[in-house]
């Protein structure tokens, strides 16, 4: 029986394992040094915040793995010997494989800051990081202040976590406005305001210079390029992540920042595949980056590679880009492409609307010339994935999107609807005369 070995039990590896099992009888082994069972990494923050217990982050009950004959091995792979199709684990044991899937995910970036490895300095990615944070910052008496370095999604989540235990937080963001490499200015500005509302000491355009140690060798303060020294007990390093592939350096598998793969998610070595955060496409697909460290892409690559391994060799073909996040109390969804001013394409034009009272806004991007709808960012309004996916496929123009915007609304019942305000601003800005159509079930389910 063919033996498929998967290194890493995150969303990519586990999705691959599940789909291989669905489609075949192959022997499946998943190796992980992090945890015994699969858990949802995105939910770690809720464990620290007390919304959930760790067991709640595990989507499958413990009996699931045995029942589905997916063997779980707790171990750290030190060497991949592809000539002999063999893995060597830290404890010296070996695992033979016929096909290998590398799904080892990411690790937090460290940019060589002095003091970056001191006790009390940590990222937030793994279960171990969660345990560290619980030890480093159990309450605001042990942790008088935390400094978070890096203004991205993990940074703001970590700030939210620490604030849930009333720990003062200073948030150092390199950019002049939060996440403005990705978000257009209006949205980024709104999130800045919201961060301040949560009593987070947000310091924009500020870089970390050094982390200082106390007499016991623990982090006690940071210094910034603005000349400030900030006393703190915990330093969170959240300046992005990069592929967790150091163990492959001598393996002969082609690496760059990640494990190089083709559209079939194959590496340069036969029968070795890479998926998820650690995989790097030779060229970005469409407008995507070569490395996509996103939950959804990890899942999709897992689904794809399982097909290939089970005999339906197919390409990784992600559809229209989508993503979501939550910034403290504000939900964010995006469908298609809306670039920030920094990354904006030549033909791209934006329409931005923000409510005058609530922290709600949207940005619609479309082609200057053809008016083709390119993408939407929404903050505080939920939108229907299927509808935007359809509109992108059908290459609808922005006027169509405005006219049928109510079909796309996914907010809970009785919520205030903002389509009227949005469209009227659009009309006044672009001299159109669109009146939004009433929501229609028929249209929503027209492709079903």
């Amino acid at each position: 029986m063919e033996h498929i070995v998967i290194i890493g039990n995150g969303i990519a590896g586990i999705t691959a394992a599940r789909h291989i099992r669905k489609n075949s009888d192959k022997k499946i082994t998943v190796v992980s040094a992090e945890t015994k069972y699969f858990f949802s990494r995105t939910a770690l923050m809720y464990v620290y915040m007390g919304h959930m217990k760790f067991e709640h982050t595990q989507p499958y009950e413990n009996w699931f793995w045995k029942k589905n004959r997916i063997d779980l091995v707790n171990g750290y792979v030190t060497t991949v010997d592809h000539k002999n199709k063999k893995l060597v684990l830290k404890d010296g044991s070996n695992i033979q494989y016929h096909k290998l899937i590398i799904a080892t995910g990411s690790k937090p970036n460290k940019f060589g800051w002095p003091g970056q490895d001191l006790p009390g300095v940590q990222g937030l990615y793994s279960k171990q990081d969660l345990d560290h944070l619980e030890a480093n910052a159990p309450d605001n008496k042990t942790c008088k202040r935390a400094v978070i370095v890096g203004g991205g999604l993990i940074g703001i989540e970590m700030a939210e976590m620490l604030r849930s235990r009333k720990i003062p937080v200073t948030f150092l963001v390199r950019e002049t406005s939060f996440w403005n490499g990705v978000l257009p200015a209006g949205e980024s500005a709104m999130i800045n305001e919201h961060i301040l509302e949560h009593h987070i000491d947000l310091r924009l355009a500020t870089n970390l210079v050094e982390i200082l140690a106390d007499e016991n060798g623990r982090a006690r303060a940071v210094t910034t390029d603005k000349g400030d020294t900030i006393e703190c007990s915990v330093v969170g390093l959240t300046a992005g992540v990069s592929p967790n592939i150091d163990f492959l350096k001598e393996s002969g598998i082609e690496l760059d920042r990640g494990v190089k793969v083709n559209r079939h998610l194959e590496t340069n070595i036969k029968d070795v595949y890479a998926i998820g955060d650690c995989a790097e496409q030779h060229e970005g697909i469409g407008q995507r980056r070569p490395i996509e460290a996103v939950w959804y892409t990890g899942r999709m690559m897992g689904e794809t590679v399982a097909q290939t391994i089970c005999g339906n060799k197919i390409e990784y073909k992600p559809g229209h880009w989508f993503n979501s996040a939550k910034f403290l109390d504000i939900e964010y969804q995006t469908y298609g492409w809306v670039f920030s001013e920094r990354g904006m394409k030549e033909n791209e034009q934006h329409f931005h609307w923000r409510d005058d009272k609530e922290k709600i806004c949207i940005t619609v991007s479309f082609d200057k010339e053809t008016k083709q709808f390119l993408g939407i960012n929404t903050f505080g309004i939920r939108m229907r994935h299927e509808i935007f996916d359809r509109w992108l496929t059908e290459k609808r123009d922005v006027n169509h999107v405005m006219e049928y915007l109510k079909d796309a609304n996914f907010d809970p019942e009785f919520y205030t609807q903002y389509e009227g305000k949005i469209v009227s601003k659009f009309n006044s800005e672009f001299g159109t005369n669109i009146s939004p159509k009433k929501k229609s079930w028929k249209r929503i389910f027209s492709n079903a």
Partner: protein
Amino acid sequence: MKAIQNLGIAIFLVGLGIFSALPFLGSFQLDQGTFNEIVEEKRIKSELFIEDIQQNVVGKEFSGMVDLSSKISNALDNANATHGKKKEYNKKIYTKSSEMASIIGKKSGTGYIANNKGMMWFLTFGLGIIGALMFIVPQIVTLGQKGIKNDGVYHQSSTGQGWIAWLVFFFLISFYLVLYFGSEYAVNWTYLVDPISKSLSGNPAGHWFVYGFMYCVVMTVMAVRMYIKYRHNVYQMVRTTSVLFFQIVFAFLIPEIMVRLQMPYYDFKNAFPLDYDFFFQWNLKSLLDSGGIGLFILVWGIVLTLVIVPVMVYFFGKRWYCSWVCGCGGLAETLGDPYRQHSSKSLFSWKVERWLIHGVLVFAVVMTGMTLYSFFTETSTVLGIKTSSIQNTYSVYIGSIFAGVIGTGFYPIFGNRMWCRFGCPLAAYLGFVQRFKSRFRITTNGGQCISCGNCSTYCEQGIDVRAYAQKGENIVRSSCVGCGICSAVCPRGVLKLENGPEQGRINPTEVLLGNDVDLMELVNKK
């Protein structure tokens, strides 16, 4: 703010403490005239019992119900035993000793509690309400920005199955045991609400009036908490208002006022088979003897169960009843909200749930069948089984222990919908309609789920919502009561409660959006 909240807890605990001490306090003195009235009213023919009471109880002052009730139950047991031996069955007293003690106790209360009802109400209910609100209202500020605020739910003893939760657990269970099986100890409580009862129905309060009044008070206070906690979520605000309205107006006020108008006591929203004794002989007789209104209630009760309930479930899902109207649901959604996360999500629990809830439904239907057969044929047995013994079994084990003691008592440890999920026969019936013929579903938003598990954790019905959401499937489970919390706690906007066309409602083979379609066809191929 913290100081106000702490003071609030202290005041609440004083009120609760006095309330809890009342069953053991107070003085009771039965005079001859009152006793004669009781003998007359209850048609007591046992001279042994009458003699015993006159000798040992009448004219004497008892401090606390414990003394009094033991005298009464002794007298009752001795008299019944002797009559039994002598085969004087017509003299036997069939009133339970607990009920007899509460009847006698209610009429013989003297002293501070019985004479200062208003003051005592303030010291119990009043302090409880003030204290609780002092704890709850500052949350407008302490919770911070509006949004989902479940910080520390699992760190706090009260909501994280700690010692406070266990204390509440034992308190609630004791309270329900008194209510169902020791009503004589509730006599002092009835004094507190006598003035309110008299102003509504014209009668002094019984222990069920205490319960009804308390139910409304607890729901109102905890609804304030809901309004603050979910102030960003209009669905929760509207739903909470609805459930509160139906409790106070339909379950509490209207039945009491009907009594004042010489009509039968009836809760118009309480549908059979949750209202399991609707077809019991005594109820049918009372309805048939009440003229036009009785007949109307009879027809309404039948139409409610056979037509209104299923038709509404077709259009809106069972939520219209379970989390918008029902009293049990109302308490679960207010008092029970802090405990919703404790319902078990395991596959095993789901199996137990299906056996139990459908078992209770079958039990209720069979019992009602026997009841109606006995009613129309005027026999007391069906196939050699006594109808009344089946009814009593149901009343005690399902109606009282399951629905009350377990249903509410288990809130703090096992979650707030124990009864609704595992026991309620009406919920089982609505569940069939919801699963197989309804426009209601929880829509999963394409491929946006990140499997975080907030939805499953906070599902009070123990549905593993995530298991569906992460596959891109809609949730159409029969047990879903449509409380909307899964949608509220979802950080990525994945879930939406909707009533829409039946076509496409159940979508097990629909694609997980994001991956290209031809691939998804393969993935979905079994």
